[in-house]
């Protein structure tokens, strides 16, 4: 028995040495190389509109040291499910989705049965993602109701969950505050018909009009005739909306901090995919989820920093 101890010990020593050298070289790779994750971001609308969201996602990717995701914008020729399909075929293993039809999208994901981790960012799934649709809508309602008088809510017959939540919360809060609420549908087959609005606006009434979606707000702002007495409120993030706000065409917007949304969504997706998120800064209670912005306060330093993308 004793005879074998020496070679056994020697063998154990060499083995452990090899293992450690191996681990050494491997660890260098592990710490330096970004992990192989392929994330796809499916958005609704043009990419320009979502620039802050993208930056938030990219920032999170940088913090997590993973590859930047592929961003697919709304393709008039491909539906979102087709886009999802093609991305899955390409080997995507994580999704961030802003669905056009929330139910359809979540059904589709279940259908594929592939169990690919996905984060839906319209507020339908994950309540913790900033910002809470109901909260934002209620805040906007308070602002809109201040002027008293009639409020016209623009709708487009969309199947989006976030719009539904916003509409519900807005209506409820507005009614609580005693405002007179009516709706105007300007959607037609998924398109937003600015012409109807133009006609409506040209009647020259003085009232409050509210759009709950960025694209609707853009169309509304564009449809306003000069010297209109209409106070336009709504949800918006895009350049066009900001421009319109700056030029007095929009009275006030509820600006969702989409940078924060993108960032949090990416972190949430990373957690779902099993990536270690412990060392990454995560928003606490003080992080800014949304802001009510008007022409007066849009150039305040803090507000500026939110609404104007710093880096191109």
């Amino acid at each position, binding site marked *: 028995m004793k005879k074998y101890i020496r070679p056994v010990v020697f063998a154990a020593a060499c083995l452990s040495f090899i293992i450690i050298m191996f681990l050494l*070289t491997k660890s*260098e790779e592990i710490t330096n190389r970004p992990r192989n994750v392929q994330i796809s971001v499916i958005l609704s609308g043009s990419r320009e509109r979502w620039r802050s969201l993208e930056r938030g996602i990219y920032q999170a990717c940088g913090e997590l040291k993973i*590859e930047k995701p592929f961003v697919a914008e709304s393709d008039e020729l491909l539906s979102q499910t087709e886009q999802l399909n093609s991305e899955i075929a390409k080997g995507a293993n994580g999704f961030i989705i802003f669905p056009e039809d929330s139910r359809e999208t979540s059904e589709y994901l279940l259908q594929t049965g592939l169990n690919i981790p996905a984060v839906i960012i319209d507020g339908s799934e994950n309540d913790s993602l900033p910002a809470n649709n109901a909260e934002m809508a209620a805040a906007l309602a308070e602002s809109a109701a201040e002027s008293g008088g009639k409020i016209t809510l623009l709708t487009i017959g969309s199947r989006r969950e976030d719009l539904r939540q916003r509409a519900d919360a807005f209506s409820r809060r507005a009614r609580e505050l005693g405002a007179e609420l009516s709706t105007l549908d300007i959607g037609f087959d998924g398109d937003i018909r600015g012409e109807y609005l133009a006609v409506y606006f040209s009647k020259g009434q003085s009232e409050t009009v509210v759009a709950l979606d960025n694209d609707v707000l853009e169309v509304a702002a564009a449809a306003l005739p000069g010297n209109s007495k209409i106070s336009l409120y709504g949800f918006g993030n895009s350049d066009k909306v900001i421009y319109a706000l700056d030029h007095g065409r929009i009275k006030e917007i509820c600006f969702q901090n989409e940078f924060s949304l993108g960032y949090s969504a990416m972190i949430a997706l990373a957690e779902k995919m099993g990536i270690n998120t412990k060392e990454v800064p995560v928003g606490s209670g003080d992080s800014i989820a949304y802001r009510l912005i008007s022409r007066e306060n849009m150039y305040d330093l803090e507000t500026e920093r939110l609404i104007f993308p710093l880096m191109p």
Partner: protein
Amino acid sequence: MKKLFCFALILSLLCACFSSCGGGLLERGSAQKEILIGVSVYDQYDTFIGVLKDEFGKFVYEQRQKSGVNISVLYESASVNQLTQNSQIESFVSAGCDVMCVNLVDRTNATDIIDKAKAAGIPVVFFNRELVPDDLERWDRLYYVGAPAWQSGVIQSEILDELCKKDLRRIDKNGDGVLQYVMLEGEAGHQDAIMRTEGSVSSFAEKGYKLERLEDEIANWTKDQAETKMTQWIADHGGRIELVFSNNDEMALGAITALEKAGIPQENWPVIVGVDGTPTGLAAIKAGKMQGTVFNDAKGQAEAIFALAWSLATAGKPSDSIALDNGKYIRIDYEPVTPENVDKYIAVYSD
């Protein structure tokens, strides 16, 4: 037993060494079932570029339907910053693009991009903003798709020639037989700007007209700057301006806005010609505010860029059906647009 042991030891040591050297990037998808194209434009606010991008997207979709191959396009905008564009190229390379289409911010500063592309072995199709030939020669997998800039200037002069043949007296307001003009230039050092400026004026002069240059300034392709310049010129020269040459439609529209804001009635306006044939430009022609433009065939260019990119990505070299000048250049001709044929071009955009 000891010998076997030592042998096993050495073997495992070698394995450990080699495994650390190995491990390349994982490839995105299998060989030919997927194509990734990287596109970087110099500025997302440039109208012409916007149209080009939309047309390109259409060709991508068409090809996707036709061949069943999954084509993905990574679009980036460099926001007029060459360094930003360089890092965008870098990200294309690391994403494993099969081909890159680059609209340079600074046409004199292509070295970085060429080096990166060459090192990664990814062919590049430059478009719309032309490199110096020396740079394009640095690698045999660099190409350029654009329009012959000189030609646009010549076409401008031809349009003017036609107009002058019809009604020179109305154009030469002060009747001195010399046409006083102002020139709105696109950008300092820009290929197209230089060519168009020179081309228009010298071709026009060749046709026997006498020209007097009142002003010639750079308005950086933008409407607002052109407006500012024009406002100043109106203040300085008033009605003496008989012709406005503009290197592009946007600046022409700026000149139009300046004229409108100055309150000058449209019949007293100088003749304005632009280049590009963007939807807004065409609308201005239709409205009679602009007298002509040179159609920059965005669709044709997009088609050419895509065809070249597609064959580079799939076959590694341009297919034989693509005609290349000097093996590198594709030049799509300009076409003149006047109030007579403007409808034809408006229709192109409503597809």
